């Protein structure tokens, strides 16, 4: 936390820059004065002019008193945040300018570098919950008291109860403000199979009935869970089974059955592209990306929601931001019930508040009803894999190595 006087200094920072530009123009006029060779008067002029420029800057400084640098993932996702959060916030607060930075993919590493070096230039960072847990564990981001930081629901329900249970405290940490529930799920090409279409996770692992290449994420996360479920493990026992060496062996054995059929992706944009190119017939992907391929680009792709893996994406605040109060003010606005529901007009990710769900309406440009495309819709979330952050924090390093060794064979 910054002490109040320190905050004041930081508050002045943008104004100081205005003074500097003012000073430059002053120096020009000062050098013109040099001809008159009246040094003391010249100095007096300078001070007077500087004072005038300073007060001008104070007045004019209201134009952009505060810059907020917000880091997100770029593309359609940042665009949805721009339209749902940034633009209305700047319209209400003319003194604030929001600067987008699309380095979300390096968010965790750069937050650590900034905090460790004591030079924090980012104000708010969009992170997936797993990264937020890591950052919180490492003490890199601010802790958040939801009922102080966040707006209550319109009916007065405090934020801590309005957000979906547990989403404010993933893995027992308390640094994360969720925005959206997204899911990693499957899409398949509607022209790839005659007759029965794939509808369950077991179909993904059944290359005989559904021949063709698959695209899966190049990481053990989700894939091991899905392999076990496809192998007959009940969804709620997945992590129990995976905690045993035999369970891990079993998951890899199941993955072995389709290993030759898999193209591994690492960037979120890849799987919809692979599907659109006909390079694969089934692909795991983020549901919003699939939605955009299906609804916005009219690709012959359909969703396969069985055992979609829920995950959260949200805001974190690096420790040592210049103006914590400005960040808090923005955060309170951008995560209120209406704003979260607004974002769903632009991208098919589910808002993380109970009170936002009924407000989700139609797509802003296409005019289609967004509710059936949400991972949280009752038709889609019959079977859901609840991603276990704490479990993965323990086993990630070990399973990453094992997964990569397995891939290389």
């Amino acid at each position, binding site marked *: 936390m910054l002490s109040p006087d320190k905050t004041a200094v930081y508050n002045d920072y943008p104004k100081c820059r205005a003074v500097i530009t003012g000073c430059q123009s002053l120096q020009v006029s000062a050098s013109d004065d040099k001809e008159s060779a009246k040094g003391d008067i010249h100095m007096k002029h300078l001070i007077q002019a500087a004072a005038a420029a300073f007060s001008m800057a104070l007045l004019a400084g209201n134009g952009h008193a505060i810059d907020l640098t917000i880091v997100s993932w770029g593309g359609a996702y940042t665009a949805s945040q721009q339209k749902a959060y940034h633009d209305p916030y700047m319209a209400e607060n003319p003194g604030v300018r929001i600067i987008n930075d699309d380095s979300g993919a390096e968010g965790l590493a750069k937050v*650590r570098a900034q905090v460790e070096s004591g030079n924090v230039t980012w104000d708010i960072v969009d992170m997936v919950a797993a990264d937020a847990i890591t950052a919180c564990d490492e*003490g890199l981001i601010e802790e958040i008291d939801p009922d102080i930081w966040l707006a209550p629901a319109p009916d007065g329900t405090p934020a801590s109860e309005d957000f979906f249970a547990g989403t404010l405290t993933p893995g027992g940490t308390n640094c994360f403000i969720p925005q959206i529930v997204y899911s990693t799920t499957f899409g398949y090409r509607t022209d790839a199979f005659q007759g029965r279409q794939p509808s369950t996770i077991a179909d993904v692992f059944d290359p005989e009935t559904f021949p063709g290449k698959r695209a899966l994420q190049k990481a053990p996360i989700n894939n091991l869970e899905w392999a076990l479920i496809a192998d007959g493990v009940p969804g709620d026992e997945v992590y129990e089974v995976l905690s045993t060496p035999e369970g891990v062996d079993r998951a890899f054995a199941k993955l072995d059955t389709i290993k030759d059929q898999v193209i591994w992706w690492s960037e979120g944009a890849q799987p919809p592209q692979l599907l659109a190119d006909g390079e694969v017939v089934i692909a795991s992907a983020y549901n919003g990306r699939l939605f955009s391929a299906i609804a916005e680009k009219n690709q012959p792709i359909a969703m396969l929601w069985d055992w979609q893996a829920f995950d959260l994406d949200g805001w974190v605040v690096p420790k040592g931001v210049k103006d914590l109060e400005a960040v808090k003010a923005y955060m309170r606005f951008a995560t209120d019930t209406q704003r979260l529901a607004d974002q769903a007009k632009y991208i098919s990710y589910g808002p993380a508040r109970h009170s936002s769900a009924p407000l989700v309406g139609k797509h802003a440009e296409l005019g289609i009803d967004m509710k059936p495309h949400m991972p949280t819709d009752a038709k889609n979330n019959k079977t859901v894999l609840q991603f276990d952050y704490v479990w993965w924090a323990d086993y990630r390093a070990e399973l990453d190595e094992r997964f990569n*060794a397995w891939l290389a064979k």
Partner: protein
Amino acid sequence: MTQGSGEIIRTADGMPLGLSLQRTLLRSRLRALMLVIPLLAFLTVTFVLPILDMLYRSVDNRIVASVLPQTTVAIQAWDSKSTELPDEPVFEALVLDIQAAHEQKTLGRVGRRLNYEKPGMSSLFRKTGRHAKRITEAPFKEQLLSVDKRWHDTSVWRLIHRESGALTGSYFLASSDLRLDDQGEIALQPEPRRIYVSLFYRTLWMSLLITVLCLILGYPISYLLASLPARTSNLLMILVLLPFWTSLLVRTTSWIALLQTQGVLNDLLVFIGLIPDDARLQMIYNKIGTIVAMTHILLPFMILPLYSVMKTIPASYMQAARSLGASPFTAFVRVYMPNTVPGIGAGCILVFILAIGYYITPALVGGRTGTFISNFIAVHISETLNWGLAAALGVILLALVLVLYLVYDKIVGVNNMKLG
């Protein structure tokens, strides 16, 4: 600088000439140094120091001792070879440390650090942190043991004992597919976890292969460029430079469009009937994809030094060789080629060093068998945040490049190299 015989020559003010010359030279050297000081300072601050800091992380282990200060001291009294748990004072120290660290929110760091060595430590520390504040008085040992049964495991205590120093070798062990077992002996990682040695090996041989391919493809092109009349060769040069100026990502993605199974090349092969439609070739997302795309991307780095060297070889050399009775082949091999060795050396070094650290192209087209060690360094930097391991992998990569450079110097000679 003094005269061998006779008296010392002096300058007008009586100073020996040699000394005076030395001083003048020193002064001019200092002046030269002053001119480059800004650059040196800039490089030191922005380049050398950050790299050294990053490299130091490969052995840095201050985290355990700084978060658990009392424990790391108390546990020294415990015999790490014993099968007994440590005594009450160690438990007390750990409980107090954990309480303090939980308060300051630093406990997660030590949990993550130890989790690199032993899966499960992260959740053990997190869970203990939540429960430890209830333990206010002795006996600490019994109460801590009742929080989580993993505290009964002596290997947990041996791990804390082992990692309580300020330096650690465990990152380097991990990046060589080794580990310290429970007894503190160096052992191989279990078979399913060995990846780094084979990755280093793959990075090396694929980089070498890419270098050789670049040489084979680049040499004739450079020869053509150097020997054609200027008008034609300038046009050809543009064809070399255009891709060189095109974005790396664009070139990589175009290779995906060309080589994928539904891509241009496969379509063409199916169209002319060379392969059946259901047996399209897998040419991307594997080693072939990485080799093809990287050879294309790095080719200009081979052509340009070769070209600049070939341009300086007078045509009269070959004519002289021919007139002395050499066949065209002999003249080329015995006269022309030896003259191009500096260009070959420069091109190969450039391409090889660029290739061995290449990152984005293998990540996009390498699939599961065509990725490089740099991709794993990136994963540990940006995803797992295990910078120690990333630094250790980086140090090994750097050392490998330096060793190869020295070998190259022994065989070819670095002074022989000409970059243009």
